[in-house]
């Protein structure tokens, strides 16, 4: 098993905000089961703030910990602030990820960003997304 930081272990053993939001304002899905990891983020937006964030994840310990910490980092933030969560920040917040897990499992920020895109699209607003990751599909 890979050597995970205490923070990763904590978020894997006790993931925060697992679940889905039935009447979500935005949904973002990245990855696919064939490549090993898949994450779906659900957001509830109120007055430009993320009032609720939930996720579901199929994947390894790192993928689950990443999703959990992203949900925590994003909770209560403005849409603009949420956009600023990057894979690098996520890894930092988790006190590091094993090298071989950095790319495949670190999809949480992308999934969140995609949920924000989805929300804006539903609002009829222009989507000014960050660059897309290779695991995302239009």
């Amino acid at each position: 098993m890979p050597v995970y930081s205490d923070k990763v272990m904590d978020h894997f053993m006790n993931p925060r905000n697992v679940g889905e939001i039935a009447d979500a304002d935005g949904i973002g899905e990245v990855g696919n089961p064939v490549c090993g990891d898949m994450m779906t983020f659900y957001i509830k937006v109120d007055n430009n703030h993320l009032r609720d964030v939930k996720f579901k994840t199929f994947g390894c310990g790192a993928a689950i910990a990443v999703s959990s910490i992203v949900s925590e980092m994003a909770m209560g933030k403005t849409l603009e602030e949420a956009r600023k969560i990057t894979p690098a920040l996520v890894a930092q917040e988790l006190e590091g990820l094993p090298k071989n897990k950095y790319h495949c499992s670190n999809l949480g920020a992308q999934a969140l960003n995609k949920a924000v895109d989805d929300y804006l699209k539903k609002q009829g607003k222009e989507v000014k997304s960050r660059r897309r990751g290779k695991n995302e599909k239009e």
Partner: protein
Amino acid sequence: MKRAYLDNASTTPILPDVLEAMLPYLKEYYGNPQSLHDWGDEAREAVEEARGKVATLIGAQPEEIIFTGSGTEANNFAIKGLALAQQSQGKHVVISAIEHYSVLHAAKTLEKWGFELDQVPVDKHGVVNPDEVERCIEDDTVLVSVMHANSEVGTIQPIAEIAKVVKKTGALFHTDAVATTGTIPVDVRELGVNALSLTPNQFYGPKGVGALWLKKGVRIIPFIDGGVQEGGRRAGTENVPAIVGLGKAAELAKEEMASRMAHLSVLRDRLIGGLLSRIGHTILTGHPTQRLPGNASFCIEFIEGEAMLMLLSHQGIAASSGSACTSKALKSSHVLTAMGIPPEVAQGSLLFTLGLENIEEDIDYVLEALPPIVDRLRQMSPLYDKFLKGKQGGR
């Protein structure tokens, strides 16, 4: 905390009798078997006694046993050494699609050295069909290698049948019997092979030692050059304590084989039956009956193996997985892929390999601990969501 070691395919514990047999050769009997004095004689006699015990275990002659540093080394030695020794007759090698990396990667190295390589496919149970082997053999095939059993899925191959096919063509036939030797009956004459690899860390002996059985008269190119040890075919001062341990482990395996197999298969069937009845959407991988007595391997759908291993480990249970996320290279097991298991299902690979120390209580502990772990990960899985929604939609 309760603990249960169910990862014996990775390595087995050392039996106390094996350790006892080894200790004098780590202490007072430190001589070099090649030396011409009492110290050398003591060590040499111990090595030769061990050679005899290994030969007895597999129905061979003592002089046909070559000690190596591991099962991996024995496989490398066989694949490269036999192919190179035959290369004037042809440069085509055939292996199965589910070989251990020590055979697969050795064969790939041969490819870099100018050999051609073909891999025989397996069916959904991981069985190599002798007819498929025949189809892969060409006029210039000099070596065929098919493992006796695969430790990842437990399937035991029809080696004697395959040997008949290979014999007709004149190619040499090697089998990697690391997963079977000392665990189920292995007799080199009955199997009809020319070379066979084994290691005692699969049957309660030490690590760092293995052996290649090479049928009398078969030529091989030495793997490690140096002195005259092992008939000049594998140089380097003999690892006397480990070889003595291998001999003792072989002796005990021969004596206790029937009772060990009975013990393991009862536990295995309890685990397989219990797990399949408690956890839905679970596939038993490998052959349902032609399987190693201690092997219970599964794919549990909609979740991933490493996450299961971490939660099991948290409860003191040791298992393993062939999922992509578990491997350093992040690729799912080539064994599961060759058996036609889709990558997303292979992600849920979970392997329990039982050993002599396991008791019924260990199995019941796993059967109690695993279902909540699977539930917990499935509750988190978007794949499981999709499956449930698909079902509601009547699809």
